[in-house]
């Protein structure tokens, strides 16, 4: 089959599946088979977390920059789009005559607003921060996310401390489509020249710079794109929950996304998806377990996440999938597996033969790099 027909068929299949799931969530269900409200909510959250995880993976996994401020961009997208929907969206929808098409159009505008505002914020945060090295970048992104959250907390026009109600509904169809778009876009970026540049920055930034890759430009670019998608996830989250409150966007949210991609493997898109699914479903599974000695396992959720994070780092730092992807290429003749798994952000250089992973202290005499 020629290439584009394959893609068309694939897209059609995905659309049908998404529509079916979405219909199953509606009141009548799909041919009488319906998904309950609880399962629907979990699926929606899975979709939103997939968008968050895949977008964070672009900056953490493929570009090798450690950002833990993702919740901040999600918050910006959520609140910016909510502001639009609450103050302008209704009016716009009426003027277009109401109905599903008008609603869809207005919602698309809301998504775009969320994406653009979050993306621009990503640019603003990225340009000064991306001169910094790993440890500092982590703290700065955390700091920016906190500042963003505190500023939003003080803006009464979006509810301030009491929270912000958002009208409008979003179905799984929307979440599913956006999730698929996110995956496709990130996948295409990674496979392109831009992706090569990003991966080269992750592997060895100095060598990349020496080879003529404009590292700052690419780092800021991946940061902006990643933030834009986080903003979109925020839009969907806000319009799904129909209520926005700043405690939803603390660094705990950022850490949840980090755990998703660390679990799945920081260099792998399918890994991010897997991680998102597992981490979203885990609390629900924990809730099913009987209480042990007065401890409901679901309360231990965060303890389990933290312990999981440490255990992964001690035993398999590259995560479940490392940099491999699950995909249709498995159907082709067996691909040679990559030579051993590398550690997260391994900066020991490209091994010719399997070298023992001893990362020695940077610099020979005089302890040195930029503080």
């Amino acid at each position, binding site marked *: 089959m020629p290439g584009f027909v394959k893609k068309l068929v694939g897209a059609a299949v995905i659309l049908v599946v998404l529509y079916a799931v979405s219909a199953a969530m509606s009141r009548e269900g799909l041919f009488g088979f319906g998904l309950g409200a609880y399962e629907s909510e979990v699926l929606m959250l899975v979709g939103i977390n997939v968008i968050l995880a895949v977008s964070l993976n672009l900056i953490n996994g493929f570009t090798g920059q450690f950002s833990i401020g993702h919740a901040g961009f999600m918050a910006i997208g959520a609140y910016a789009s909510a502001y639009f929907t609450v103050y302008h969206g209704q009016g716009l929808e009426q003027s277009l005559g109401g109905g599903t098409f008008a609603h869809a159009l207005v919602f698309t505008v809301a998504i775009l607003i969320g994406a653009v505002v979050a993306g621009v914020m990503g640019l603003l945060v990225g340009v000064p921060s991306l001169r910094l090295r790993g440890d500092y970048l982590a703290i700065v992104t955390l700091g920016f996310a906190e500042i963003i959250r505190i500023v939003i907390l003080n803006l009464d026009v979006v509810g301030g401390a009491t929270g912000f109600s958002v009208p409008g509904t979003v179905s799984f169809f929307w979440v599913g489509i956006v999730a698929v778009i996110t995956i496709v876009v990130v996948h295409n970026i990674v496979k392109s020249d831009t992706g090569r540049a990003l991966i080269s920055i992750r592997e060895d930034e100095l060598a990349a710079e020496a080879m003529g890759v404009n590292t700052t430009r690419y780092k800021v670019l991946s940061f902006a794109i990643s933030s834009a998608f986080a903003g979109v996830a925020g839009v969907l989250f806000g319009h799904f929950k129909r209520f926005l409150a700043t405690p939803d966007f603390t660094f705990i949210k950022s850490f949840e996304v980090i755990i998703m991609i660390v679990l799945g493997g920081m260099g792998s898109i399918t890994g991010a998806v897997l991680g998102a699914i597992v981490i979203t479903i885990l609390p629900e599974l924990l809730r099913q377990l009987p209480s042990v000695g007065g401890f409901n396992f679901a309360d*231990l959720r965060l303890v389990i996440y933290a312990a999981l994070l440490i255990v992964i780092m001690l035993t398999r730092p590259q995560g479940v999938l490392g940099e491999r992807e699950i995909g249709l290429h498995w159907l082709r003749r067996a691909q040679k597996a990559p030579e051993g798994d590398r550690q997260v952000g391994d900066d020991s250089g490209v091994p010719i033969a399997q070298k023992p992973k001893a990362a020695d202290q940077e610099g020979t005499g005089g302890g040195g790099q930029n503080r």
Partner: protein
Amino acid sequence: MDTFVQQIINGLTIGSIYALIALGYTMVYGILRLINFAHGDIYMLGAYAGYYIAHWLGFAGEPSIAGLAVTLVGSMVAAALLGMAIERFAYRPVRKYARMTTLITAIGVSLLLENLGVVIFGGAPRSFPEQLQNETYTLFGNAAISKTQLLIFGVSVVLMVLLQWIVYKTKVGTAMRAVSFNLNSAKLMGINTDAIIVFTFALGSALAAAGGVLTAQYNPTIYPLMGIITGLKAFVAAVLGGIGNIPGAVLGGLLIGAAETFVVGYGQLIGIPSTYRDAVAFAILILVLLFRPAGLLGTTVQEKV
């Protein structure tokens, strides 16, 4: 004028706490190039350790200097042991891996301590027993300084002088400085770097615990998540002063404490609500990293290939 002096006193009080915690951050970063995210939680656990020591040893009933001393020293010892355990079981195995791995591990340990704290101690805030008969001494006008504040200043100064002595006048301190300069060369010179690293963690954790107990005297409410924001601000203080630089940590801590108090105190006059308090430290961090990343007292080191 008296308000100004009061602000300074308050700012330096809270700044001393930040300084004590920042010292731990800076020392660990100096030898391992690792930001110990869990350090803020050791501050929290130090406060809780002091709480339990005070209650179990019967010092919770009425204020007593002996009780305060025992609580302080006891919590410092407990925190030192905890810090050594964290280093041994969480950080040492991943030391040989890439930097991001150690960073993620540190975040994991931090999350673990916080949420274990919530599960074990309960999320509800507790009241730390008052161990100092508090009195306020009026300086002039509205400016007053309380006995607790004098205690915080006094203990902080003593601990910092002690640390200076250890780092600059003892063999262990010289070894610490050598390891922070270049770990491999120190190893070649016969220094047991593992032991020095353990010692550094113990020292830093003890200081953080002291900060915890002192804070609890000043502000008796303790809760398991109290280490997060304070720890982050103390880290900013360490960066402001120049990370890896011990006097810098002290300077940074005092500056951040003063800045925070001034912004909250005078900000209300120009329309900045006091809820922006926490944002001050982060704003300072961003400014520092933009304009002087090495910090006030730090030296820029060139990155070698």
